[in-house]
């Protein structure tokens, strides 16, 4: 009954834990059902202050979305100075389209909670949900554009 009710609820709204994912810019345009499917593939992880999240040169399989806390990035994408990523930002998407390996090392600057998704799961999801993948790609492009303009403006 609980399963049936939760399914029916995906059509009729209500308070949903998976709606929280809409706070991430990449998923802000997704429908409730898209978010529900995405949330099934997400894993919650916590990192203590100072803990290493990943190291440059590691294989890239997980994309992280920062729920709370700050993460310091050192490496190819960090630019002239260390880059600090805050809540609602993500790690791994740019690397995903560049190489099979991490280009930077990431450390938690405070206690951090992240939503993590496997790269293969995200790709499978995007292959299966065309409308959702279009929205995600649009958000990635807008992220990239901002990144490029920041470089041009000397902010990176």
């Amino acid at each position, binding site marked *: 009954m609980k*399963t*049936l009710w939760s*399914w029916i609820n*995906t059509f009729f709204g209500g308070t949903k834990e998976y709606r929280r994912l809409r706070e991430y810019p990449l998923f802000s345009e997704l429908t409730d*059902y898209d978010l529900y*499917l995405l949330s*099934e*593939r997400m*894993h919650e*992880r916590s*990192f203590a202050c100072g*803990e290493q*999240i*990943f190291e440059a040169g*590691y*294989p890239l*399989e*997980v994309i992280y979305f920062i729920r709370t806390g700050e993460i310091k990035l050192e490496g190819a994408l960090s630019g002239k100075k260390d880059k600090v990523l805050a809540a609602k930002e993500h790690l791994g998407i740019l690397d995903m389209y560049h190489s099979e390996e991490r280009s930077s090392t990431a450390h938690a600057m405070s206690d951090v909670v992240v939503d*993590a998704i*496997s790269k*293969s*799961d995200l790709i499978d999801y995007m292959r*299966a*949900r065309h409308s959702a993948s279009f929205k995600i790609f649009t958000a990635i492009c807008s992220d990239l554009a901002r990144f490029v303009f920041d470089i041009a403006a000397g902010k990176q």
Partner: protein
Amino acid sequence: MNWTKTIFYIIMAVVAVAALIFYRWVFPYLIAAWIFSYILDPAVSFMEHRRIPRWLSVLILYLSVLGIIAWFTSRLIPELMAQANNLIAILGHDDTMSTEILMQIPFLSGIYDFVLDLDAQIPGMNLGEQFTAGLDSATDFMARLPKFLVDHYSTIIGAVSFIGMIPLISFFLLKDKFKFRRSLLKLSSNRYFELVIIIMSKIDQTVGTYLRAMLFEVIAVSILATIALQIVGVSNPVLIGISAGVANIIPYFGPFFGGALAVATVFFDGGPFIQMIYAALAMYLTQVVDNNIVYPVVVGTTINMHPLLVLLTVLAGGWYGGILWMLISVPLVFLVYTLITVMYTNLKEYRII
């Protein structure tokens, strides 16, 4: 040394070992259900993406599979049983099969005449005697073959009750696939989280693709062989086709079994020599289509195992657990090999070993 931590780990280890001992009987059920759920998972995911919840998708799939089985049972089983009896009668002949009857087969009597000719020209060779002795042992084996088959079929029938539990366990594995994955990943520490996820993804991909491809290939080869044998007029084409399809699981050697069974059926049926060639050709063409169209498209990559290793694995499987293990030993070894390769590569890449 942190004694609290050590004592906790010891207690956990004891609990884990006790759990393994307690649940050891259900492992075969779990493995079979896991394989079954791998085969059905793409269809469940397909429906889930069309707003059908996983539990309902599984139920719809089960009903569809039941429908197919019901259709198969009502339409094909009586025909299959008749063909099985016919084939056993041809191969076995029970009390009527003898060397004298075999000698009436034109092909064999031709060879026997030739051997006698040789004996007459080269004295002391006794090829005729050796030929009849060989036929005697062959007929003896054939007489025991139906009993051998029935003995193994009784084992298979015994497994039917085992099979009954599989869909039930698979239902939960399919319905709560993501929940199980999340729970499993929660157990891993942050240091190993990415490693575990990458290993799980790769195993998921390799095992899932391989199992589904294998099932599709068995079905494709069974249908192709049945049609080809039907066209050339070999008796019992459905049964031989299905046997060839199942034997095809064993790389390199499986296809020969199907061909040999088709040729042997024509041979013991007293068919002309040319029909044996047609039967062999039909099975060869089936393999050509399978190797060049079905396998590359469906499986993509072949099982990269040396033929000698395949042969040794099949033999070891046969010694260990009979026909069933002969069939599953090669895929099993391949899967274990893949698993170890994936683990080794990633442990290296994460600089853990």
